[in-house]
């Protein structure tokens, strides 16, 4: 009993400091308010104030829209990429690398590139739209477009990562299943619908949860591109927490928002454990 604990202790010290203790602390902070003489238990008051805050409501809604807008297109694209690029060949290898390269660069670097892409008037998108005879837009400055713009960036950045798992999932499909469908005279679309997609279901459950978790935990690009604006249009949960803590110094509000975010992540993780067989599909 001594040896296991001794060998686990280096990990346990760090886990206690940076995983378990913070959860206790954030639950404490979320249910307490600062007073002149220390802190006072306030029950769910911080949560009531949090949910009454229009900015937080907006952040929740934004994050839900952002999650939907990134997860669905990313998964559809990942499937399309994987289906088309499964197999050998120089061009396919090249295209797989092209789709995967965005995964390798920091999200802030991707944001730096898209800063010019989205620049109104003279930016890469507007300039070429104008040459084709279309009007451009102030992609990051227009509250109706800004969230869609950062969604596009996220899909560009992550779809190649999800493609990997779909490729692995495709290769796990037994050849017999396809051969049987071929012998039955099924065309490509029928084989896709009745053989490939059902076989990929666990992969999608798994990748979908990764994508959802990413939609909550990746916000670096918001710092470079929009800082949550214009008029809160791109304020996501994590950015809201950052703002409450680092700029407004409202510890109770930040802690309550963190608890809500943790509850969301826990629910998503539970979903992933019950719905997918991650390890099997990932190999």
């Amino acid at each position: 009993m001594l040896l296991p604990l001794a060998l686990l202790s280096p990990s346990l010290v760090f886990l206690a400091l940076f995983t378990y203790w913070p959860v206790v602390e954030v639950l404490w902070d979320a249910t307490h308010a600062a007073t002149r003489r220390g802190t006072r238990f306030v029950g769910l008051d911080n949560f009531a104030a949090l949910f009454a805050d229009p900015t937080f409501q907006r952040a929740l809604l934004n994050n839900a829209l952002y999650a939907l807008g990134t997860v669905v297109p990313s998964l559809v694209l990942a499937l399309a990429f994987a289906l088309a690029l499964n197999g050998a060949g120089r061009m396919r290898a090249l295209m797989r690398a092209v789709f995967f390269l965005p995964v390798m660069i920091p999200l802030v670097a991707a944001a730096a590139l898209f800063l010019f892409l989205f620049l109104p008037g003279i930016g890469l998108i507007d300039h070429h739209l104008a040459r084709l005879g279309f009007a451009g837009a102030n992609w990051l400055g227009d509250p109706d477009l800004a969230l869609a713009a950062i969604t596009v960036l996220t899909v560009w950045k992550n779809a190649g990562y999800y493609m990997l798992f779909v490729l692995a999932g495709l290769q796990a499909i037994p050849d017999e299943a396809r051969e049987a469908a071929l012998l039955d005279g099924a065309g490509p679309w029928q084989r896709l619908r009745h053989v490939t997609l059902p076989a990929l279901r666990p992969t999608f459950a798994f990748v979908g949860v990764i994508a959802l978790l990413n939609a909550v935990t990746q916000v670096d690009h918001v710092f470079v591109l929009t800082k949550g604006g214009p008029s809160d249009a791109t304020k996501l949960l994590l950015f809201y927490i950052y703002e409450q803590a680092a700029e407004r110094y409202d510890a109770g509000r930040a802690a309550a928002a963190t608890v809500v975010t943790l509850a969301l992540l826990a629910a998503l993780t539970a979903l992933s454990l019950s719905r997918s067989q991650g390890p099997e599909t990932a190999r």
Partner: protein
Amino acid sequence: MSAAMQSGPVTREITPRIARWVVAGLALVWAVPFWWMLVAAFRPAGSGADASLLPSLTPTLANFAEAWASADFPLYFLNSAVLCAGILAVQLVTASLAGYVFARLEFPGRGFLFALFLVQLMLVPVVLLVPNLKTVAALGLYDTLPGVMAPYCATAFGTFLMRQSFREVPRELEDAAMIDGAGWWARIRLIYLPLTKPALVAFSIVSVTSHWNEFLWPLMVINSPDKRPLTLGLASFTLSAEGMQAWGLIAAGTFLVSLPLLAAFLIFQRRFVNSFLASGIK
């Protein structure tokens, strides 16, 4: 581990042909931001062709020289390298020790402790920004590189990966070493670690990639400009160059920051891909 980037001939038949043309078109679209970065980074400043995707006939390294000089990228590179190397060094020790315990030692409460480890997969440090920052400050590590490293020193993903691969090592090898009088450390070092090199490499690739690219947690911990890692340096450099409309500089800076991992990926594609697939195990 399967080689997802390769495959046999049968899978091809499931692909409707039209999808392949659509995807080829998308590949061109996907390449545009990178292509623009390259073209803009090598274009002479003030040519007024910022949005052009045609490479300049007179390519120049001036943007790189200016970016390199104006934002202390050498120091940012050093900070990022120290961060990644430091995190990885500690992680390799903590993860191998814990992985060995969960793979080979029997004791009451093992399942519970393992589950307790796995909780960390969900509780990424960025979500626990505020309490973790308080802990870092209480330890006197605010505005230091060890402060950025600390939350990553224990790794549930690494522990899980090492446990899985240690389990595949034949137990007889360890038993033989035990009879020869080898202690636990000698057994881990001489038997388990050499035989699980692929897993160690996969873990190292994922660890270095994610910490090289990290932004929000270092942003919270680091205050002094001279302790910034590359991502923080690039963000502040980008925001100041944006004010000057110096797009060639931004492209060059972005390229500099992204280059090490991009180059490593292009050279060791297969290894990266397999490592990232392994990371999906979590």
